[in-house]
């Protein structure tokens, strides 16, 4: 394989591993807000224990998100130097905003969230939980804005700069808000956030269903399961709406990408495939099962309206078809399944019928894997479908601006052997990290929420307890994966 293929493989692998965590923290953030809100309203201590449990799970995933996120920041420079020079000026402001506001805001309040149970009042604690949730949504804002800008650039011009007599081109920002609100950023951001909510909700359901099947922490599990199913059902509906909105925009902003998603080669009325095996060489979809005119209808509300096909584009400007097609259909298929599953479960929540249906609970234990897969598949489709461009060409104020091809974004000095070596190293070290994640997550789930009522006086600040436990906490991959209260009790999460 050449440097381009290897660098793309490395970036894909490292970002997919990273992307296990951020959507999960977004989704769990909402679950924590709901649970802690219930505690604030009812002052029922068992809600507090539930909130503490999810806080611990959240903190672990947050820490892993941070650890794997550093890699992404390095790779822009190490593997994609030409790309970094081209986009640096535009990315700059978005990245700075992300770094300062989202990341530090979130980390700062997370400290209160994890360590502050006995140090701040319930209202302040609830406010911190809300800020952490908003912070994790906020950090999605900037990275999705930056990515959307690459897909549908706006608010910039390309400037020729001459350094040492060598001319080069780079994008420079002309209008910050036009860059932020580029044509695709809002709908893509909403869809991404909703994907996170679905994942967090299914994760909650999975853990709760496991407890119910094992007859452990049943009161906790029933409550959390109910919350999870309701969030998952609402989000699945919203995912459908925002997904549709995005797909119909694609017809205008990135028609080649939409054509690749649906395996649509010749311009004309387009079908909507349920499944198939697209073959770019012969220009058709084998074994396809399609609704005739379905895509035309979705985009134009007319079964006969023409949709631009891939063959409209010169061969060098076409994305591959197989991977975007399959990952897009995997996402859509899973999304539809979530909708059916959660809407079907809602009526069963009444009178707790669902809690007696063991097969359905087992389904929920594993459905979270589908939610992980759907989030990943969505991004695979988004990123492979926009090839061969890393920054799409665009028209600004009537002027055509050339894009940047992925193959032109590479580091000039990096060799295939070096990238291959680093891929092998990443494989080994991420396998270890994955083992840590599963190991610690499992120990937290096995430990479960604390169900004992808290000891009298535990609500007043206990300075010695905080210091002792803080200094001797189980520090996980991150610094804040243990609430101090757990450590000061017997049998912490270790």
């Amino acid at each position, binding site marked *: 394989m050449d440097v381009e293929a290897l660098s793309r493989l490395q970036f894909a692998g490292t970002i997919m591993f990273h992307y296990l965590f951020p959507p999960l923290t977004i989704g769990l953030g909402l679950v924590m807000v709901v649970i802690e809100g219930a505690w604030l309203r009812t002052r029922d201590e068992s809600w507090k224990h539930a909130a503490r449990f999810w806080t611990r799970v959240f903190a672990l995933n947050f820490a892993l998100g941070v*650890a794997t996120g550093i890699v992404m920041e390095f790779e822009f420079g190490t593997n994609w130097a*030409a790309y970094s020079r081209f986009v640096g*000026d535009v990315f*700059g402001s978005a990245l700075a905003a992300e770094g300062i506001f989202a990341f530090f805001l979130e980390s700062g309040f997370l400290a209160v969230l994890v360590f502050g149970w006995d140090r701040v009042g319930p209202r302040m604690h609830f406010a911190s939980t809300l800020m952490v949730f908003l912070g994790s949504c906020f950090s999605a804002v900037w990275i999705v804005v930056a990515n959307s800008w690459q897909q549908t650039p706006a608010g910039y011009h390309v400037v020729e700069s001459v350094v040492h007599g060598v001319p080069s081109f780079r994008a420079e920002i002309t209008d910050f808000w036009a860059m932020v609100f580029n044509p695709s950023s809002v709908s893509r951001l909403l869809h991404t956030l909703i994907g996170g909510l679905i994942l967090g909700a299914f994760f909650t359901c999975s853990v709760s269903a496991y407890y119910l099947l094992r007859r452990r922490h049943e009161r906790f599990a029933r409550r959390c399961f109910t919350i999870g199913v309701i969030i998952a059902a609402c989000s699945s509906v919203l995912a459908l709406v925002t997904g549709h909105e995005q797909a119909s925009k694609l017809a205008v902003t990135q028609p080649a990408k939409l054509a690749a998603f649906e395996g649509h080669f010749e311009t004309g009325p387009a079908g909507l495939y349920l499944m198939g095996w697209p073959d770019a060489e012969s220009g058709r979809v084998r074994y396809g099962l399609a609704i005739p005119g379905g895509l035309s209808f979705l985009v134009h509300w007319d079964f006969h309206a023409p949709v631009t096909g891939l063959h409209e584009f010169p061969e060098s400007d076409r994305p591959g078809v197989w991977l975007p097609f399959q990952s897009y259909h995997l996402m859509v298929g899973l999304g539809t399944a979530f909708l059916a599953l959660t809407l079907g479960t809602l009526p069963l929540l009444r009178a707790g019928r669902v809690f007696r249906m063991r097969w359905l609970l087992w389904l929920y234990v594993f459905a979270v894997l589908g939610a992980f897969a759907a989030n990943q598949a969505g991004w695979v489709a988004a990123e492979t479908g926009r090839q061969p461009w890393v920054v799409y060409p665009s028209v600004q104020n009537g002027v055509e601006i050339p894009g940047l091809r992925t193959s032109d974004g590479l580091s*000039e000095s990096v060799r295939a052997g070096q990238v291959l070596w680093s891929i092998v190293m990443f494989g080994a070290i991420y396998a270890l990290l994955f083992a840590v994640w599963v190991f610690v997550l499992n120990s937290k789930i096995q430990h479960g929420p604390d169900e004992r009522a808290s000891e009298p006086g535990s609500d007043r600040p206990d300075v010695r307890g905080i210091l002792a436990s803080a200094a*001797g906490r189980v520090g996980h991959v991150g610094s804040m994966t243990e609430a101090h209260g757990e450590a000061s009790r017997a049998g912490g999460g270790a």
Partner: protein
Amino acid sequence: MSHDALSLIWFGLLGVLLIGYTILDGFDLGVGILHPIAKTDEHRRMMMNSIGPLWDGNEVWLVTFGGALFAAFPPAYATVFSGFYVAFMLLLFALIFRAVSLEFRSKVVHGGWRRVWDGGFFGSSLLAAALIGITGGNLMLGLPMDEHLVVEQSLTGQLSPYPLMVGALTVLLFSMHGAIFLYLKTEGDLQQQVERWIWRAFGLFLVVYVLTTMFTLVKVPRAVQNFEEHPWLWVVPVLNVLAIANIPRAMFKRRPAYAFASSCATIAALAFLFAAAMFPDLVPSTRDPAWNLTIFNARSSEKTLGIMLVVAIVGMPFVLAYTAVIYWVFRGKVTLDHASY
């Protein structure tokens, strides 16, 4: 504000981030380097737990530094990160492996198991500290950068004597800094041992510091150019020497907090001297000084630097407050309980 002023401010802010990172991550990398010297399992656990809640917040400063460099001076970020491909990949692996080692070590009570992760914790801390120094040393020397801003240099080419010496200096500086930090966080038996490590680390650091200073004056003549134009800069090396001299004095007088402040000042001064030696270059080219990447030809547009400055002014108080809160919560001596590493 003019474009030039904004460029200067961002060079300064990068310097602040670099100082923040080296002071904060310096002591926890140092604790990792000292780790195998501790003889008993209990002592080793105390050491790991002294940095337990702090180290990943410290690494956030590195992330912020990288992001700020990318945003403010994209060509410099691109050239350095791609030019140091192998070294930076090793740095990433070291940082992640270190996290894994901390996490795994104390999960199983078995001698062989713990020895493996002890080795991992030590090796990755040492490697990370050395690579930071080696990168700095190479930047001081300049990189073989052509007019297309491309650096073609193998890792072995980057392991020449001067960068290796700066790498050694960094390792010893962080070890001394980490030892003083440990002295503050421990008591009794372990604290007495740590005191001996401080003296040894200090002695070794002093020798390599003097050698590196001489080596720099011989090998990197442009290091003092800015000092000739701006004589006030000489205040910094003088303060640096005073800070170094104050470390043994404070330890002798049993004022470890002053010693720690002095080692923080030493690191800050060295990072400052590095920035002063580089200015206004970000990446000097050894092939033709006309090809240097400077803060003026590698900067982002005026608009971008301005937006980022607003963001930084609004956000910096949060950053500092966050750091202060975490350190306040985790003040005091380390003790072990069932939930420790």
